[in-house]
C-alpha cells in the first residue's frame, strides 16, 4: 500500500526535479547567447533582465514654448510639454550609442550603428539619414592604402629631404645606424620612395627590424606610440606603428604619406564618457562628427546643403583620430578633445590651427580618460575630469587648475559641465553645483596672490530632497534663467535659477529593451574573427581526416591480428594519455624553431605544423575508440569474403571499413571536437592571425575585447555552435564509442 502511494508521488516529483536540473544545467549557455544579443552598456549597468528599466537620459534641451526634449543613448527621443508629466511625443531612432546636437529646428543624432540622422523637430520625424556606408564610401575616395603617392605639386624638395633623412640620419636620433642601413634598402629621391616605403611595410622582417630599433626611444611626443609598442601587436598594428614613428621622427611633409585607417564602426563601445560618438554643429550650417576609437579616421564635416563630406585627419595634423568631444567655439573654430590632447580646428579651411597634447602646457596627462568640456569664449575652455576642473587658455597655451571646494564630500566624478553667461554648473551623482564664473575665475588670480575666496561658492541645487534628480546627472542645459537636467534612470527636471526652485520634473517611460544581432556583425568587422573560424575549421578538419586514416588502419590491425609487439603497442597507446601535453610541447616548440633555423622550413605559425602535432596527439585516443568499433564487427563477414576469393586488403576495404564507417565518422567528429577545444598547443604554435584558432584569436585581441562582454559572448556563441551541431549529428555513435570501452571492457 505504501509502495503504491510512494510511486504516485515519486514519478512527478522526480520528473520535475529532472527538468529543474536540466534548466539549471542549460542556464549558463542560454545566458551566454542572451548576453551576446545585448549591448555592453546594458550588461555593465546590470540591465540584463527584461524587466522595467528606464533608459538614462544623455541629452536634454528645451523646445519652443518651454517644452523639454530628452534623448537616450539608445536613440529614443521624448518631448514634454510645459508642466506635463507624461511625454507628449516619442520618436524611436532605433540606434545604439547615440549622441545629439541641436541646430535650430533640427536635431542631429549620431549613432555608432546608424550613422548621422537629421531629425526635424517641427514635424517630429527623421528628415534624412547619412549612413556609415555612405560615409565610408565618401572617405575612401579620399584615401589610398599604405603610403600614398604624393599629390600633384608636391614639393620635390620634400622628397629629397625625406630620402636624405632615411638614408643618412640615425634611426632613432642618437643611434649609430640609419634606416637604410638597418633594412638594407636605399630610399630614392623621387616619387618611387613611396614604393620603397610600401615594400618595407609589406615585409614583416624589415618592418620588425625598423621597429626594434625604436623600441625604447624615450621621447615620443605622441602618447599612442609607446602604447602601441607595449601591446601585443598584429601585423596591421605594426604597419600602423611604423607609419606613426616615421611621421614622428621626421615630421613635416612626410606625414602626407600617412595612410588613414578605416575600420568598420564598432558599436556599443563604452569609453569613459558613455557614448563613443560625438556630433556638433560647427557654423555655416555644417555638422561635424567623430568617433572615440583609433580605427576611425578623424573628424568628418558634413555640409547637408551640398551633401559633401570633408575630413580632418592625421594628415591634416590631428593628433589623434580617437575623438571624445567636439565643441563649436565660434563660427569657424572647432574644439576637438581627443585621447591625445586638444585640437583647435578651422572649419573653413579644414585644417588644424593648434594642437596641445595632454601633459603639455599645464594640462594633466589624460590618456583617454573621461573629460567634459565647456567653452567660455573662443579662446578659453573649461575641462572637467574626475573631480578637478581646469581652465585652459589657447591664446597663452596655459592651463590652470580651478579650486573646486564644493565637491568636498562628493564621491562621484563630474559627469556634466555647462556654462552660461554668468554661471558654471557641475553635474555629479549628488546633484548639480553652480558657481559664479567671474568670482571663480578671479579666485585663480587671487590664489596666486595668496588669497583664496572659497566662500563665494554656493551650491544651488541639492538633489537629495527627493523631488528632483537623485541620480547621476548626464546633461545640463541652461536657457533663459532655467536649467534642465537629465540623467540616470530617465529622470529629467527643470529648475529656476534665480529662486533655485524646481519647476517641473518627470521620468521617462520604460524604454525599449535592446536585443540585436549587431555583436555578431561587429565580431566579423572589428577583429579577423572570420579568419580564426576558418583556421579552426581547416586545422580541425585536416586533423580529423589524417587521424581517422591512420587510426582506422592501426585499430583494425589491433582488433583483428596478432603480431609481435602488440601488447607493447597497446600499452604505449594508453601510456601516451598519461603524459602531460606540455612535456611534448616544450621540445616540439624547440625542435620546430630548430627546423626553421637549420632547414628554413617554417613550422611555427603554419597550418602544417599544428596539423602534424594535433594529428599525432589525437591518433592514440582514436585508435583506442575505433578498436572497440572494429571488435564489434563480426569476423565471419570478412572470412566469408576471404573464402569468396577476396584479398585481405580487399576484405578490409569492402567489408569491414564500410561496416565500421559510422563508428569512424563518430570518432572523427569526436576528434574534431577535441581539436576545436585545444588551446595550449595552439597558443604556442599558432600565434599570428594567419593561423590562430578561435581561442588564440580571442587572446590576441584581448586588449580590444577588454570589458566587451557582449562581443566576448558573441565570440563564445559562434565558437560553440559548430561543435554543438556536429555533436548532435552523431550523438548516439559518439556516446557508444566512448562508453564502449568502459562498459564492455
Amino acid at each position, binding site marked *: 500500500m505504501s509502495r503504491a502511494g510512494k510511486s504516485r508521488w515519486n514519478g512527478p516529483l522526480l520528473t520535475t526535479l529532472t527538468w529543474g536540473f536540466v534548466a539549471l544545467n542549460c542556464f549558463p549557455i542560454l545566458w551566454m547567447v542572451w548576453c551576446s544579443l545585448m549591448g555592453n552598456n546594458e550588461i555593465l549597468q546590470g540591465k540584463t533582465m527584461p524587466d522595467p528599466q528606464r533608459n538614462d537620459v544623455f541629452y536634454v534641451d528645451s523646445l519652443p514654448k518651454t517644452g523639454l526634449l530628452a534623448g537616450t543613448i539608445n536613440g529614443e527621443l521624448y518631448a514634454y510639454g510645459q508642466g506635463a508629466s507624461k511625454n507628449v511625443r516619442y520618436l524611436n531612432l532605433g540606434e545604439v550609442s547615440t549622441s545629439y546636437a541641436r541646430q535650430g529646428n533640427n536635431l542631429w543624432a549620431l549613432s555608432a550603428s546608424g550613422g548621422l540622422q537629421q531629425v526635424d523637430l517641427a514635424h517630429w520625424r527623421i528628415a534624412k539619414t547619412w549612413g556609415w556606408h555612405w560615409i565610408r564610401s565618401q572617405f575612401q575616395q579620399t584615401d589610398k592604402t599604405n603610403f600614398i603617392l604624393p599629390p600633384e605639386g608636391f614639393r620635390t624638395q620634400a622628397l629629397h629631404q625625406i630620402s636624405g633623412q632615411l638614408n643618412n640620419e640615425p634611426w632613432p636620433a642618437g643611434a649609430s645606424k640609419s634606416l637604410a642601413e638597418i633594412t638594407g634598402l636605399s630610399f630614392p629621391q623621387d616619387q618611387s620612395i613611396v614604393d620603397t616605403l610600401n615594400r618595407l611595410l609589406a615585409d614583416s622582417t624589415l618592418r620588425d627590424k625598423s621597429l626594434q630599433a625604436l623600441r625604447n626611444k624615450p621621447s615620443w611626443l605622441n602618447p599612442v606610440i609607446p602604447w602601441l609598442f607595449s601591446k601585443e601587436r598584429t601585423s596591421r598594428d605594426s604597419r600602423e606603428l611604423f607609419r606613426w614613428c616615421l611621421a614622428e621622427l621626421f615630421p613635416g611633409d612626410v606625414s602626407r604619406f600617412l595612410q588613414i585607417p578605416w575600420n568598420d564602426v564598432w558599436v556599443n563601445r563604452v569609453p569613459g564618457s558613455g557614448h563613443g560618438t560625438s556630433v556638433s554643429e560647427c557654423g555655416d550650417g555644417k555638422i561635424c562628427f567623430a568617433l572615440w576609437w583609433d580605427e576611425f579616421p578623424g573628424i568628418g564635416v558634413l555640409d547637408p546643403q551640398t551633401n559633401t563630406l570633408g575630413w580632418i585627419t592625421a594628415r591634416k595634423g590631428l593628433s589623434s583620430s580617437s575623438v571624445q568631444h567636439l565643441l563649436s567655439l565660434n563660427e569657424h573654430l572647432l574644439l576637438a578633445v581627443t585621447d591625445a590632447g586638444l585640437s583647435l580646428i578651422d572649419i573653413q579651411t579644414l585644417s588644424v590651427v593648434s594642437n596641445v597634447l595632454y601633459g603639455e602646457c599645464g594640462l594633466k596627462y589624460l590618456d583617454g580618460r573621461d573629460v567634459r568640456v565647456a567653452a567660455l569664449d573662443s579662446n578659453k575652455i573649461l575641462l572637467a575630469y574626475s573631480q578637478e576642473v581646469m581652465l585652459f587658455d589657447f591664446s597663452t597655451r596655459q592651463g590652470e587648475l580651478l579650486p573646486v571646494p564644493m565637491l568636498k564630500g562628493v564621491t562621484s566624478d563630474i559627469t556634466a559641465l555647462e556654462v552660461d553667461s554668468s554661471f558654471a554648473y557641475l553635474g555629479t551623482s549628488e546633484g548639480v553645483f553652480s558657481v559664479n564664473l567671474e568670482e571663480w575665475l578671479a579666485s585663480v588670480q587671487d590664489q596666486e596672490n595668496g588669497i583664496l575666496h572659497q566662500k563665494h561658492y554656493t551650491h544651488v541645487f541639492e538633489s537629495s530632497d527627493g523631488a528632483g534628480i537623485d541620480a547621476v546627472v548626464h546633461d545640463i542645459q541652461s536657457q533663459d534663467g532655467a536649467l534642465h537636467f537629465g540623467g540616470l534612470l530617465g529622470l529629467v527636471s527643470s529648475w529656476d535659477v534665480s529662486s533655485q526652485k524646481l519647476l517641473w520634473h518627470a521620468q521617462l517611460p520604460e524604454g525599449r529593451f535592446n536585443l540585436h544581432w549587431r555583436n555578431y556583425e561587429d565580431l566579423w568587422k572589428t577583429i579577423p574573427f572570420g579568419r580564426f573560424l576558418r583556421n579552426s575549421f581547416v586545422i580541425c578538419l585536416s586533423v580529423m581526416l589524417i587521424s581517422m586514416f591512420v587510426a582506422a588502419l592501426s585499430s583494425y590491425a589491433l582488433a583483428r591480428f596478432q603480431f609481435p609487439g602488440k601488447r607493447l*603497442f597497446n600499452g604505449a597507446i594508453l601510456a601516451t594519455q598519461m603524459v602531460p601535453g606540455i612535456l611534448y610541447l616544450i621540445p616540439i616548440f624547440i625542435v620546430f624553431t630548430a627546423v626553421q633555423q637549420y632547414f628554413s622550413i617554417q613550422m611555427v605559425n603554419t597550418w602544417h605544423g599544428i596539423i602534424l602535432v594535433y594529428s599525432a596527439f589525437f591518433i592514440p585516443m582514436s585508435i583506442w575508440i575505433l578498436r572497440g568499433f572494429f571488435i564489434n564487427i563480426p569476423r565471419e563477414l570478412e572470412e566469408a569474403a576471404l573464402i569468396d576469393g577476396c584479398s585481405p586488403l580487399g576484405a578490409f576495404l569492402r567489408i569491414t571499413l564500410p561496416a565500421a564507417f559510422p563508428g569512424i565518422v563518430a570518432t572523427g567528429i569526436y576528434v574534431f571536437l577535441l581539436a576545436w577545444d585545444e588551446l595550449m598547443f595552439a597558443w604556442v604554435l599558432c600565434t599570428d592571425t594567419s593561423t590562430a584558432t578561435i581561442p588564440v584569436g580571442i*587572446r590576441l585581441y584581448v586588449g580590444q575585447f577588454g570589458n566587451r562582454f557582449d562581443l566576448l559572448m558573441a565570440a563564445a556563441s559562434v565558437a560553440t555552435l559548430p561543435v554543438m551541431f556536429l555533436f548532435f549529428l552523431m550523438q548516439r555513435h559518439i556516446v557508444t564509442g566512448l562508453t564502449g570501452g568502459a*562498459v564492455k571492457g
Partner: protein
Amino acid sequence: MKRDVWSRYKFPLLFISPALLGLILLHLFPMFQGFWLSLLESNKSTIEQYLHAPFVGLANYREILFSSDSQIRQGLWDALRNTVLYTVFVVFGTIVLGIGGALLVHRNFPGRSVARTLMLFSWIIPSYVVGMLWGFMWQQEEGIVNQLLFDRMHLDIITTWFGVHWDYDTLGQLIKPRWLTGENTLWAIIIPTIWRFWPFAMVMFLAGLSSIPSEVYEAAEMDGASKSEQFFQITLPLLRPVLAMIVLQGIISNVYSFNIVSMMFGNGAGFPGKYGDLLMPNIFRNSFQMWNFGVGAAISTLLMLVMVGVVALWYRRFREDLSNE
C-alpha cells in the same frame, strides 16, 4: 627468421606503421628530449643552441624542490595544492552529479530523450568557452551569479540569520564577494569544471545502468529489498568498473586541465592568482612566458612520474573491477 616474421605479419605491421611512426616521432622522441631539456639551462638566450644548451645536471630539479627562496618553487607549491584540491573536488562532484543525473534520466518519463540531450549541452561547449563564460558570470558587479544570489535572492540577508557576516559600503550597498581574486578563485574554477564534465560521467553511468539486467532488481524486489538497499547493494557495486574509468579519466584530465583556468582570467591575458593557478598554467607560464624551458621540462617530468604513481595506485585499487569484466 626475420624474413619469416615480416612475411607473416606484413599486413598488421604495415597497418600500424604510420601510427607507430607518429608515436615515435611526436611522442617518444619529444618525451626523451623533454627529459634531457630538464637537465639543461634552456631559456630564451640559449634556445638557439637547441640541445647543446649548458648542462646543469639536476639544478632545475633542485630549484623547484628545495631552494626555499625561489619564487618558482613557491608558485609551484601553490599550483600543486590547488591542483590536488581541484582534482579531488571535481572528480567527486562529477561522480555525484553523474550518478544522480543518470538515475534521474534512467527512469521513464515524458520527454526523456530530450532531457538526456539537454543534459549533454554543457559537455559539448568548448572548455575555453567555459572559461570565458564563467569568467564573465563570476564578475563582482556585472556577473549573473552575484546578481542572482544577492540582488534577486538577497542571500546576504538570509545568511545573516545564520551568523554570516557581510560588509556594506558607505552608501549601504552590499560589497558582493569577489570570485576571481583571493581564496574564492578555487571555487570559481572548480564549479565550472564540474559543470562541464559531469555529463560525461552521466553518459558513462547511464551506459553502465542500462547494462544491468532488470532481472537483478526483480529478484531483489522479491527478496524485499528497499529502493535504497537496491541502490547500495546492487547498482553501485555493478557500476564499479564505470566508476573506475571515470576516476581515471577525471584524474588525468583535471590534473592536466589548462583551458578553463587560462581563459577565465582576463581572457587568457591575466594571472589566475595564488588560489586559482593550476599546474598546467603554471608550467606553461614558466616555459612560454618566462622562457625558462629547463624548469618547465623539469616540472613536467616530475609531474609525469607522480602521475605514473597515481595511476599505479588507481590500478591497485580497482584491479578486481577491471579484471571482472
